[in-house]
């Protein structure tokens, strides 16, 4: 199905992989040091779309690799979201190009240039957020029922994106195959949805009504006042979520759509709860190029205490809980939960 509809034209289906040789100057320091290590992710590109190169000293060029999977290099662990790995050219022994996403890579420098010419400043890598996303973690990210519906009837999610997903008129069988495929590749538990094996013969149903009433991320009752506080944080347009996201139909400030992020109203239906929690806790560890800041830092002073008091962990719990039931939140009696 992926081949039939040319999904790989826009989306990266497999990330680039570089094999780098162990640092010979450190030989013997680590007893179990492998001779080489494979990195999976995206090489850093410059504003022209070429491989970002550094030749500050005279010992040959160095490149930079953004990890999408953790790696141990020369005995040191590198996590996703950390600094890019510095790769001297001499240590780069094998390059396996990404599969798919050629159009996105072609457009990256064009969009970056357009933005800068129109006076929009973006952090390095930020323009990737305006392009069709890599689908490598799609199955771990989205709810299968949402994906099934989206494939049949794509809706705009990210206002900043330069290209819209066309409607391919997939059959339900094809949409189901793709949904299952993404979930399986991501290692999700089978069956991939709770209504698998229903009497209709279809594991997914194409319906307009919400398909999931409530899913608490925190065990036990959750205070309504806590959700109210979380709502104040989420809808805040000065510094927090409402600054970039549409919340309850209210768009973020500013006309520049490049800085507008997806509406939060449907997040609970679109994203898996465990993904949503990881994403909010540390966005760069999930999507390295994201422009989303960490609003619930693991260390340091928690933000937004006037809106949502508590530790970062408590704030995170409250916001995850709110987003998972966002569509129903305004309809709940204030003493419920």
């Amino acid at each position: 199905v992926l081949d039939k509809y040319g999904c790989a034209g826009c989306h990266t289906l497999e990330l680039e992989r570089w094999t780098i040789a162990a640092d010979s100057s450190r030989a013997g320091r680590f007893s179990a040091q492998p001779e080489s290590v494979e990195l999976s992710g995206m090489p850093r590109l410059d504003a022209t779309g070429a491989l970002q190169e550094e030749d500050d000293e005279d010992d040959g060029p160095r490149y930079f690799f953004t990890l999408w999977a953790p790696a141990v290099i020369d005995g040191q662990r590198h996590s996703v979201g950390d600094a890019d790995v510095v790769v001297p050219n001499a240590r780069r022994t094998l390059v396996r190009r990404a599969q798919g996403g050629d159009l996105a890579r072609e457009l990256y420098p064009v969009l970056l240039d357009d933005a800068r010419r129109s006076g929009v400043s973006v952090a390095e890598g930020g323009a990737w957020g305006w392009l069709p996303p890599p689908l490598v973690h799609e199955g771990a990210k989205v709810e299968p029922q949402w994906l099934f519906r989206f494939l049949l009837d794509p809706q705009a999610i990210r206002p900043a994106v330069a290209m819209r997903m066309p409607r391919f008129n997939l059959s339900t069988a094809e949409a189901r195959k793709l949904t299952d495929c993404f979930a399986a590749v991501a290692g999700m538990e089978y069956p991939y949805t709770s209504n698998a094996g229903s009497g209709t013969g279809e594991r997914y149903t194409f319906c307009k009504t919400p398909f999931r009433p409530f899913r608490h991320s925190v065990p036990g009752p959750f205070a309504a006042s806590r959700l109210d506080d979380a709502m104040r944080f989420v809808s805040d347009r000065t510094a927090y979520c409402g600054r970039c996201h549409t919340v309850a139909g209210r768009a973020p400030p500013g006309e520049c759509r490049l800085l507008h992020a997806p509406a939060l109203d449907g997040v609970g239906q679109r994203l898996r709860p465990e993904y949503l929690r990881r994403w909010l806790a540390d966005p760069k560890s999930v999507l390295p190029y994201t422009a989303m800041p960490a609003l619930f830092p693991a260390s340091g002073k928690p933000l937004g205490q006037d809106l949502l008091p508590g530790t970062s962990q408590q704030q995170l719990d409250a916001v995850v809980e709110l987003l998972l039931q966002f569509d129903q939140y305004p309809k709940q009696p204030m003493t419920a939960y």
Partner: protein
Amino acid sequence: MISRRRFMVQSAAAGLAIVFAAPGPVQAEKKEEAKWGDLKGRFVFDGKPPEPKKLKVDRDLECCVKFDIRDESLMVAADGGLANVYVWLRNSKASVCPDLTQTAPKQVVLDNRDCIFKPHCMAIWYPKQQYSIVNSDPIAQNVAFSPLGDTPANIVLAVGGNASYEFHRKQSAPVPIACNYHPWERAYVLPRDNPYVAISAGNGRFSLTKLPVGEWEFQVWHERPGWLELPQWPKGRFRFAIKAGDNDLGTIKIAPARLEAKR
């Protein structure tokens, strides 16, 4: 037994020997001065100074609309002085004058003020100086940058907020800084492992002080083209033999075409 006269002669001779053998403070200072030299020059835009474009300000209007916010990517004085040109020593093996170690400010501060970053261009001697980020505006700010091979930063600064960031490696070009809340804001910071970085002032003048004497390679960079290339400066680089005292590159005229933004 030594006679008084002989003692006097011997003492005087010993004193003279001490004077000539060990340099006094003035001589030591002169010897130290002979090790270091300054490099100065002036960048001039060789054309009619352009009027900086007014940028679109569409957020936090109650605070930001009162400021005349303009494109700072090409700042030219009325007399042609070209600001914000970086000149730095490429070689990291050069020794550093001890005076600079003592006199370098402890902090380099990036301020969010008047709805822009101030200063627009800065440098940091990262092993010695701390990078501090403050918000002087009555609105929240965001500071995002991603140095090559170093920890990415995406910091939310509430009103009155401040933060610090630690660089771990030198960069071979200034790092762009963006604000995801205010798309018109932009700044640059160049972290280096020595203090030999200069940024031309509003009048186009720059000065690298107390460089070690010897021939060195320098890098020239401007945010529009990146490497500021001239026929005699391929890749924006030039070699120069620094002599003790003053060294003057003179006036460097830059044709407008060399300051076109590259894609």
